[in-house]
């Protein structure tokens, strides 16, 4: 009788990082990758246009990226967030955890989602330490999706989500007008929200979201320390004590400090 070998599905974390003159995103991604690897025990792939040798990453995929975004009123503040839609095509894994480099993985809650049958899951709910984040975008009240965290399996529907996000990036002006969304800078959150909405037949009841809230620190951070599974986060005039959990830290300058490097070293042992 012929024996069949069932191939185990590959799973890993995918990060994108494109340096600018002001921010070394690759360095942030390296630190984020260390945390993800230590916490989840999964291989990490980086997509970048930088030339990298001897890094923490298991795999580095080099691509070109030409999209530039400027912060209104600050012509020298640039970020390069385009081409995230290529994650489906570039991911070497059957099951991918796609995260922003400023999303710090400190617990393994994400893994329990892979025990379900799904095409993709997107972070839907967000909160700051003080409040829940606005849940909708645009004047039609489109349910916000955060491209900060997307889990996907290599399925036809996932491919459509990413292909459609690419189409939205290429025709961004048209889509933000169609959905009455303010701001001309390209945002992956908007592209994936619109893509998800179209893909699900404009039905907001479809539940593709991750069923918990992401915790975001949007202000400047002075330090992060950890003791006995409690993380202390100090801002300029406040401090938070939070249980060890995944956090979204928007202060890129802090993520490049020695203090954060020490935090990563402490967490990773």
């Amino acid at each position, binding site marked *: 009788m012929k024996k069949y070998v069932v191939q185990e599905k590959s799973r890993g974390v995918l990060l994108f990082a494109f340096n600018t003159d002001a921010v070394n995103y690759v360095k942030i991604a390296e630190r984020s990758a260390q945390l993800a690897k230590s916490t989840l025990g999964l291989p990490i792939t980086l997509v970048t246009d930088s030339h990298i040798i001897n890094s923490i990453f298991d795999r580095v995929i080099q691509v070109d990226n030409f999209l530039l975004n400027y912060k209104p009123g600050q012509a020298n503040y640039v970020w390069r967030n385009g081409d995230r839609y290529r994650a489906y095509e570039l991911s070497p894994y059957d099951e991918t955890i796609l995260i922003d480099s400023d999303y710090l993985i400190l617990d393994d*809650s994400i893994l329990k*989602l892979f*025990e*379900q049958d*799904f095409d993709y899951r997107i972070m839907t709910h967000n909160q700051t330490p003080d409040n829940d984040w606005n849940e909708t975008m645009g004047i039609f009240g489109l349910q916000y999706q955060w491209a900060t965290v997307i889990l996907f399996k290599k399925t036809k529907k996932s491919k459509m989500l990413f292909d459609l996000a690419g189409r939205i990036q290429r025709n961004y002006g048209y889509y933000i007008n169609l959905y009455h969304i303010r701001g001309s800078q390209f945002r992956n959150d908007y592209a994936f929200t619109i893509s998800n909405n179209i893909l699900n037949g404009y039905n907001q009841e479809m539940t593709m979201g991750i069923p*918990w809230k992401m915790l975001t620190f949007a202000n400047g951070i002075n330090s992060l320390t950890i003791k*006995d599974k409690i993380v202390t986060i100090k801002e300029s005039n406040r401090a*938070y004590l939070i*249980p060890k959990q995944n956090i979204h830290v928007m202060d890129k300058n802090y993520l490049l400090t020695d203090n954060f490097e020490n935090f990563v070293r402490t967490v990773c042992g």
Partner: protein
Amino acid sequence: MSDLENITNQIRLATDYQVNKRILREKIQTDLQIPHNGGLFKVSIELISFLNSWDQDELFLEDLYQNPIKIDRKELLNKCREHYQMVMNTWHVQHEEIRRARKV
């Protein structure tokens, strides 16, 4: 330090405790979610009570993604009880830690 500064600091500490408490509770809500038989369930006292009182051993339960999931009642009940106990203990321990910090 003036009286007003003292009061302001005390209010800030009290407020920060409430914020920390809220964040901890949200994390516990996440931790209470468990995967089972291809579904995702949030362990609650209602779910435990329901599983405890149902008189059939096999049934379908709606999960967090609104899918009917076939379950073995006793198996899920045991899993829920153990998980609930573990998460509640963690909550208690961590809550004590943030309460202590309030007094610093």
